[in-house]
C-alpha cells in the first residue's frame, strides 16, 4: 500500500526523501508528498520518519 503522510505531523526534515529508493518523495508546502506513480510501496519512508508522520494502511476485516 502507498503510505499516507500526515501533513500536520510532518516537520519537513527530509529523512524520508533521503531514503526513498525511487526518489518518489518531495517537499510541497513544507510537507513531504509522495508521487504515487513512482512509489514502489517499499515502506522505507514510514520506518525512517522520526515523528511517525507516515503510516502504511493495512486493511482489517473488522469481522
Amino acid at each position, binding site marked *: *500500500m502507498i503510505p499516507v503522510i500526515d501533513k500536520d505531523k510532518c516537520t519537513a526534515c527530509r*529523512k524520508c526523501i*533521503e*531514503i*526513498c*529508493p*525511487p*526518489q518518489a518523495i518531495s517537499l510541497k508546502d513544507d510537507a513531504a508528498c509522495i508521487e504515487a506513480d*513512482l512509489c*514502489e*510501496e*517499499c*515502506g*522505507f519512508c*514510514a*520506518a525512517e520518519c522520526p515523528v511517525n508522520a507516515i503510516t*502504511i494502511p*493495512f*486493511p*482489517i*476485516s*473488522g*469481522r
Partner: protein
Amino acid sequence: MTNNGSEKYPNIFQSGRIGRLISKNRIKYAATETNFPFGDGYVSDKEVAYMEAQARGGAGIVTTQGAYPDKLGEGKGFKGSMAIYDDRFIPGLARIADVIRKHDALSCLQILHCGREGGVELDYCLMPSIVPQKLSYFKPPREMTKDEIKQAISDHIEAARRAKDAGFDMVELSGIVGYLISTFISRYTNKRTDEYGGDLRSRCRLMIEIIQGVKARVGDIPVGIRLCGHELLDDRGGNTMDESIETFRIAEEAGADFLSVTVGWHESSQSVITRDVPMGHWLPVAEAVKKKVNIPVMMAFRQFFPHIPEKAIAGNRIDFWELCRPMIADPELPVKIKEGRENEIIPCVACNLCFSRLYYHQPIMCTVRPNLGHEAEEDWGYYRFYPAKKNKKIIIIGGGPAGLQCAAVAAGRGHNVILYEKKKELGGSMLLASKVDEGAIELLRPVNTLEALCRKAGVEFRLSKEYTGEMLEDMQKKKEVDAVVIASGSVFKESHNILTPHNIIAEEKKPGRNIVIIGGSGTGLGIAVFLLRNNDYRITIIEEGSKPGRDVNPFYLWQYMGLMKKKNVIFYTRSRVIETGEKTVRFACPKGEIVLNPDSIIMARSEPNKAWHNAFIDITPEVYFIGDAKKPRRLQNAIHDGYRTGMAL
C-alpha cells in the same frame, strides 16, 4: 500437451507417500507468509486466489503460510499473518483447504509461533530465556513462565484441531530461524534451568510435547515439522550440526510423520538463500537427516532447477522437493516442467524483495512477476491476458527487461510488436549487472525467459538496429505505427575524465588505484564490489541520500557493506558533487566542501536519455516511457513498468 517432463524427471513426478496419504508427485509448495490476509488474521480473497494459483500450478502438496496459534498475538510475526487461534477463523481457512483440494493437491496447514520474531503488534516477544536481540527490528524478549509454556502447547494443539476441522489433509509445525520451537531447541537462546532447558533432549521438550499433543488430538492426519538442520550460529554458541540433526530423530520418535530440513537463522552471519549460494548447496544437511530417520524428508533452499532435486531424490538424499520463492515467481513451475515448457518458467532471481516487504508491513511483491497478489483479477492477466480491444502496431525501443516484458505482454494481448535493440544482444543493463559478483549471472534468466515468451507471442526482433526519429517519421507517414514505447534505459554522463560502469565492466578498463565513485546506490556499490572482488583499490563513494545502497535488498547490502568495510571504502552521504576536473572532484557534504584528487572518477549515477523525449513526443500521439528511460531504478521497476504498460496498451 506433451508430458515429456515426467519422463525427464521420473523421480519428481512419481507419487509419494506421507503417513496414510498419497501425493501425485514429489513437489511441495513451501510455507510462504504473504501479508495478504487481513490485519485481524482473517483469510482474504487475495490469499485464497493466491493459494488457488499455487494449487492449480501442479504441486502435489500445497502448504499454507504459517498461521499464528495464540490470541495475544505473541506468535504473530507480520501485520498480515493468518490466524488460527479461534474457531471463528475456520470458515476462512476452509476456503483455502477447498481450493487446494479442488485442484487435486494435498493441503497442509502450517502452524507458526514466531517466538523471538513474534509480537509484531506488542512491545515484547516470548522466549525461553532473555537473550537480547541482535536484529534491532525485533521486540525485546521476555522469559516465558511455565504457565505460558503450557498455554503455548495447548494453543498449538487446538490450532491443529482447527486445521483438521477446516478440512486440511495434514499439519506442519514450523520451528526454524528463531521461531518459538527453535529458540527452545537452540543452546544459544535457551538458558533455562527447569525441565524445558538443559541438555538437548530437555531443550526439545517443548517440541516433543507439542508433537505428541497434536498427534493425540488429530491422530489420523499426518503431522510434520520444519526444523533447522544447521543453525550457523557457531559464533554465538548455537547447537552443533550433529545436535541439530539429532533433533529430527527426536521429532520422529515423538511421532512426526514428515520432516522439512532448513538451514540458518535470520541472525546467522552467513547467507543461505542469496545468489552467491550455489544451487543445491544445502542438500548434504538434508541427507544427514535422511540417514537417521525412516519418515519422508524434504528440503527447499536454492533448488531452483528440477535436475537438482531429481538427482537428490534418486540418490536418496531427500524424498520431496520443496519450493518457496521459485513458486512465488511462478506458481505454474510444476506444470511447466511436467509439460516440457521449462523455458517458460518465470525464474526467481533470489533477490528477496518478497521477503523484505514483509518486514515493512507490505504485502509481498515479486521482482519478476508483477501480477503476484492479483491472481483472481482478470485485468492483471495471471491466467490469461485479456485481448486488446484494437490491434495496434507497436514499436518498442530497447531490449532490456522493461522493453522485453512490455513486448511479451503487448504481443500476448494481440498487438503487433516490433522490438528494436541497438546492441546485438538482449538484456539491457542486466548485461552489466550479471557480471558484478558471484551468482549474478542468474539475473540473465528473466531476460532469457522474456525472450522466449516474446517469441512465442510473435514479437519481431530487430537487433543491432538503432531506432531513429527519421524512421519513426517515415513509419508514421505509412501508418505503420500506433504507439511507441521507449525502454531505452538510462545513460551515464560520459566525458574524457570520467569512466562509466560500461567502461569498467564491459570494456574491462582498469581504473587507477585511488577512485572516487559518484553515486552510492546499487549501481555504485555494484561497481565497487566488482572492483574489490579481485583487486585492492582505495575507493571513496559520494552519495546524495542518507544511506548507501538504499535501493539494494538488505540480504545483499550487508554482504556488500561487509566487503566495503574490509576494504576500507570511505562513504560520504548527503553529499552532492559540485564539479569534476582532471583527477579532481569537488563536493559538498554536511561538514562543508571537500576536494579529492583520485586517479580515476567513475560515474555511477545515470539519467534518462532526454534525447528520446524531445525527438519522439511530437510525432506519435501514444508514447510511453518505461524502466530506466522513465527514471533509473532497479530490475523490479523495469519489469513492473513493462508489464503495466503492456496491459494498458
